[in-house]
C-alpha cells in the first residue's frame, strides 16, 4: 500500500463525520443565539431555554411523552420476557411463526399500522389519547425488546435454573431468583431502547394522540411547520439530550456487560471480545 499523506477515503470519512454532526450542532448553536431571526450570531443567551421552560404546553407535552414512554416500555418488557420464556421451549415451526410476527412489526411502515390502529379505535369507538399512543408504541417497541431478549436467552445456559429447580425451588422462585437476575442486563438495555424509541416517535403519537394528548416531538413538528420560533431549538436540544442520554447509558451497559443487545447499538460484537 502507498503511504503518501492521508488516503482520499480517510479525508472523505472526515468530511462525512462533519456532515453528520453539522445539523445537530446548528440546532444547539441556534438555541443559544440572541438573534430571533436566526440569521446571524448575535451573542449568547439562555432566553429561549427560559421561554421553553416557562411554556405551559411544553411542560404538559413533556409529561405526556414521559408517561407514554414509561408505560409502553413496561408493557413491552413484559411481552418480551414472557415471549422469550416461551420461545426457549418452542418447536422450530412455532419459532418461525413467532419470528415472522416480530419482524413484520418492524418492517411494516409505521404510517400503515398507526393508521390501521386509528381505524380500529374509531371503529370500536375507543377515544384517542395517551392510552391509544401507548398501545401503538408497544406494537413496535415490544418487537425490538423481543429481539434483544431472545439474543440474551440464546446465550444463556439452563444449568443454573435446573440446579435451582433440583434443589427444590418452585417455578416462580426459579424465575425470580435465577432467571430474572440473568436477564437483567438485557432488560435494562431493552428498556432504555424502548424509552428512546418512544420519546422519539412522531408518527404513531401524532395519529393516535387525538386532540388532547400531544407528545413533545409532535409539538416540535407543529412548531416547525407552522412558524419557526427560536424556542424550537431550545426544546429540540433538550429532546436530543434526553434521547442521547438513554442511548449512552445503554451503550455503556453493553460495553461493560455483553447482552446481545449490541446488534441494535452496533457495539456488541466489539464489546463481546
Amino acid at each position: 500500500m502507498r503511504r503518501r499523506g492521508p488516503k482520499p477515503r480517510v479525508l472523505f470519512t472526515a468530511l462525512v463525520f462533519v456532515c453528520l454532526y453539522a445539523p445537530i450542532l446548528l440546532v444547539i448553536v441556534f438555541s443559544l443565539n440572541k438573534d430571533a431571526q436566526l440569521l446571524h450570531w448575535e451573542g449568547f443567551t439562555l432566553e429561549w431555554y427560559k421561554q421553553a421552560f416557562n411554556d405551559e404546553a411544553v411542560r404538559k407535552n413533556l409529561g405526556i411523552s414521559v408517561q407514554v414512554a414509561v408505560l409502553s416500555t413496561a408493557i413491552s418488557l413484559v411481552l418480551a420476557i414472557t415471549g422469550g420464556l416461551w420461545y426457549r421451549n418452542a418447536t422450530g415451526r412455532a419459532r418461525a411463526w413467532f419470528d415472522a410476527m416480530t419482524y413484520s412489526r418492524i418492517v411494516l411502515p409505521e404510517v400503515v399500522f398507526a393508521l390501521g390502529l386509528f381505524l380500529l379505535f374509531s371503529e370500536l369507538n375507543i377515544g384517542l389519547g395517551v392510552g391509544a399512543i401507548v398501545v401503538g408504541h408497544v406494537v413496535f417497541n415490544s418487537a425490538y425488546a423481543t429481539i434483544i431478549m431472545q439474543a440474551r436467552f440464546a446465550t444463556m445456559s439452563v444449568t443454573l435454573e435446573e440446579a435451582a429447580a433440583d434443589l427444590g425451588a418452585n417455578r416462580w422462585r426459579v424465575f425470580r431468583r435465577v432467571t430474572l437476575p440473568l436477564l437483567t442486563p438485557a432488560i435494562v438495555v431493552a428498556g432504555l431502547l424502548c424509552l428512546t424509541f418512544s420519546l422519539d416517535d412522531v408518527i404513531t403519537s401524532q395519529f393516535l394522540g387525538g386532540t388532547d394528548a400531544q407528545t413533545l416531538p409532535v409539538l416540535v413538528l407543529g412548531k416547525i411547520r407552522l412558524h419557526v420560533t427560536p424556542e424550537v431549538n431550545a426544546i429540540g436540544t433538550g429532546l436530543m439530550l434526553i434521547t442521547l442520554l438513554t442511548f449512552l447509558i445503554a451503550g455503556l451497559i453493553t460495553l461493560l456487560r455483553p447482552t446481545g443487545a449490541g446488534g441494535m447499538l452496533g457495539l456488541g460484537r466489539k464489546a463481546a471480545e
Partner: protein
Amino acid sequence: MSGRLRGLGRQLLALPSVGWTALFFWAPLVLLVVYSFAQTDLLTYEIKYDWTLSNYGNVFQGLYLDAIVRSLILSVASTIACLLIGFPVAYTIARTPGRGQLILLFGVMVPFWTSFIVRTYGIFNLIGDSGPLASLLQTLGIIGDDGLHLLFTPLGVAIGITYSYLPLMILPLYVALERIDPALLDAANDLGAAPHRVMRRVILPLAKPGIAAGCILVGIPATGEYVIPQILGGGKTLMIGNVVADQFLSIGDYPFGAALAIVLTAIVMIALVLLRRGERRPVSA
C-alpha cells in the same frame, strides 16, 4: 426450568405477545384490507361495504400515482446515495486499528440516536435559502446571490433521507467489511491484482450481504417516510406516506386511504423480498 413447565402453562407464556400482536397489529391490518374495498358516501361520510375495486383504480391516477412514483425515486436515490457515501466510510472504519474503530463506530451511531425530528430540523436550518450552507457556497463562489433552492424540493427531501438513514447503511457494511480477512487482500495484491481489481473481485463480493442488509435498512423505511417530507418537502414534495395520512387525518376518505396504505405495504414487501434474495446469495463474482 425446561420440562418443568407443563404443556398449557408453557404455551400461555406466548399469550401476551401473540395476543397484543393479533389485536393491535393484525386486526388493524385486516381492517385496512376490508376498508380498502369499501366506499365512502361523500355526502354522509358513511362507509358502504360493497367490495369494489374502485379505490385501487383511483390509487394509480394523477396526484396519487405521482406520489407513489416520487416515493420510489426518492427512496431508491437516497439508498444509492447512502451506499456510495457509506461504503468508503465503513471501509475506513473497518481498516482502522484497535480502539479507534470503536470510537469511530460510536461516532456514527450518536447522531442516529439523537432525536429524529430534531436532526431533520437541523437539516431544515442548514439547507435553508439563507442558511449556513448557502452562505458557505456563496463565499466559495459556487452559487450566486440568488440563494440555495433546496428546501421544499425533492432534492432537499432526498438529502434529508440520506442524512437520517446513513448510519443504518454504514453499520451492516462495516460488519461485512470488518469480517474480511486482511490476508485475502494481501494475497490478491501479491498476486498482482490492481487495487480496483481487488475491490471488484474480492471486497465487493464479500461485502454483498452487508450491502443488501444496508439497502433493506435504508430503502424500506425511506419508502414509507412521513416526517422528512413534512418538514423538508413543505407540503409540496409529498410522498405516499403523507398522502395516506392525509386521507385519514384531514380528508376523511378512509376506504381510499386504506387502499393507498395497502399499496404502500405491497411495495415495501416486494422490495423486501427482492433485497433478501441479494442478502442470501453472498458470493457471486
